[in-house]
């Protein structure tokens, strides 16, 4: 589904990704871990097409297409979804309007019929249940005045509605209490299907108790320094990152 080869990316003068190689197959869940500053969020954002980063080398192929050659909206239309670490507040646009605009933009791009507000609301109801929300949330401005946990839940709601082939969660677990974490995990697990894949970017092992990954990768200084199965996450939990990165957490934070 996704094949990353020799990916390098910079923000301004600073090179952050220094050569990433990663293959994600349909049906798999990959966890990307690593200390602060290792480049894991950058990787997530580069895959979604964040304008702050320039790709300087390497290729990314998504379902046979050159992902790096696509605009952010084309990536979304092709089935890539990024759950933001810091979801953006958009005052003046209701959640209902935003979600329907996104859903219909993707359908339109795929040559499918757009849904009117009534039909869309029907569809939305089951998705709201996933994140344990009532319909009233839809009349609030997008992330407007939401708590940190609510913003993350809203990302999961968007993901549930848009049903991406590849979901990338950028530290969706950080700052969540145990209930919110459970809801996020439920949303991700509800989406799991043999034809879909998930990349979880996370700092902590905690989320992986709820979403069991097939692979765990450790990033340090912009490249993958260790890959393994789910046990690697437990080892990291016990030993920290220093034994892999040669640095202490404090030095890179």
């Amino acid at each position, binding site marked *: 589904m996704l094949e990353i080869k020799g990916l390098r990316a910079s923000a301004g003068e600073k090179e952050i990704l220094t050569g990433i190689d990663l293959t994600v197959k349909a049906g798999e869940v990959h966890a990307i871990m690593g200390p602060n500053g290792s480049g894991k969020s950058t990787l997530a954002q580069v895959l*979604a*097409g*964040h*304008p702050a980063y320039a790709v300087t080398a390497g290729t990314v192929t998504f379902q046979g297409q050159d992902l790096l050659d696509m*605009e*952010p*909206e084309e*990536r*979304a*239309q092709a089935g890539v*979804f*990024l759950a*933001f670490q810091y*979801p*953006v507040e*958009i*005052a*003046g*646009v209701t959640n209902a*309007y*935003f979600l329907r*605009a*996104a*859903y219909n*933009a*993707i359908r339109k*791009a795929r040559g499918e019929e757009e849904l009117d507000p009534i039909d869309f609301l029907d569809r939305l109801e089951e998705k709201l249940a996933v994140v344990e929300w009532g319909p009233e949330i839809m009349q609030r401005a997008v992330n407007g005045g939401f708590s940190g946990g609510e913003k993350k839940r809203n990302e999961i709601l*968007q993901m549930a509605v*848009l049903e991406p082939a590849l979901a990338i969660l950028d530290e969706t677990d950080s700052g969540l209490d145990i209930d919110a974490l459970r809801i996020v995990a439920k949303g991700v697990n509800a989406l799991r299907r043999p034809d879909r894949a998930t990349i979880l970017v996370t700092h902590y092992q905690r989320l992986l108790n709820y979403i069991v990954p097939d692979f765990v990768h450790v990033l340090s200084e912009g490249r993958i320094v260790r890959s393994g199965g789910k046990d690697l996450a437990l080892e990291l939990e016990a030993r920290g990152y220093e034994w892999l990165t040669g640095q202490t957490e404090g030095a890179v934070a």
Partner: protein
Amino acid sequence: MTTLYAEAFERSTRNGGGKGPAALVARRRAAFDRFASAGFPTTRDEDWRFTPVAPITRVDWRLDAGRLDAGGLVSAAQLEPFRFGQPGWATLVFVNGRFSPELSHRPELPAGVSVEPFAEALARDPEFVERSFALVAEPDATAFSALNAALAHEGAVIRVAAGADLAEPIHVLHIATAEAAGAALQTRTILSVGQGARAQFVESFAALGDGASFTNAVTEVTVGEGAWVEHSRIQRESESAYHVGLTQVEQGRDSHYRSFTLAMGGAIARHDLRARLGAENVECLLYGLYLGRGDQLVDNHTVIRHEFPNCRSWEVYKGILDGRSHAVFNGKVFVTPEAQKTDAKQTNRNLLLSDTSRVDTKPQLEIFADDVKCTHGATVGRLDEIAFFYLQSRGIPRDEAKQILIYAFAAEVVTEVASVPVREALDRLVQERLGIRA
């Protein structure tokens, strides 16, 4: 220049301007004298620093446009788009400054509520007109309002008696047609709301065709004790037209006044909104939206005077500027020494869509009381790239994302309109102007 206006004033005095109570006639003359001695402002006047009115003041306007035959210039069908699909609203229509009985709609209203053109009100209750005209509006507020006091013989006089509760808005609709090109239209509207009453008003300034007319409008609003008033002012004149307006509000104890001002027409459009919180426990909410494009100049000046304790004012003005348009915002909040426990917040936000658009914004607080909570702030910025990316990352194309973000910026103030039909009408109007697909 003054000769033109002096002749017009003498002519108007002979042709009916001399009618009405002696005090009213004298007040008109005093206003004219003030205008004649002060003259029009220039950019050397602090209040007009960024708004050169020379394009208005150097023209020899036709000042008898009120005598243009209003009948037949506009058909009911042409008026439809300006009625917001609300044929049931009590509506006074003025075509080129002149009252049109045929196009107006005057349904039966609750007892004590009257909606009349100026001349009718003057004939029926001259004493009321005398004590309402050009008194709420400080006669010398601006040279333009003084000129209006001298020359305006048309407009609406709306009275809502104590305790009345109006279910629907009352609409005062001014239409300028192509025939108004080169004409100066002076209108004066009086809105008087009695104790404990609830009322909604919409004032529209619209155009058919793109004539360069000059509207000089003054509206005086009195909000009685405990009354609730929503007042929406929609200025959608031709982009070749000139518009200068003053709205002056006087609020009684425990009253609530909320205004929404939309300015999107005019080559030069200036609106002054002045509210005096003249008693205790008053609430005053001022929302504004201005949209500039091409070479438009749109200027909003507001003054809120807190003169009594325990009052609250809340002001949010937002602007969206494209092309080479230029916006001016000046908001003053005065808090006198008596006005303890004042709660005042003023915000002005501007969105620039082009490199050649410009904003001069100046929020001002002048506070002479010590136990108050007052804040103000102004921003000028562009669309947020991160917000763009957020929308794009959800599959929304960049063009559509831009529309959504621009609309969102505007919608944040439009949603503050309390009246649902007025809010929906404004929402559609703003979307249409911004070219947003619903």
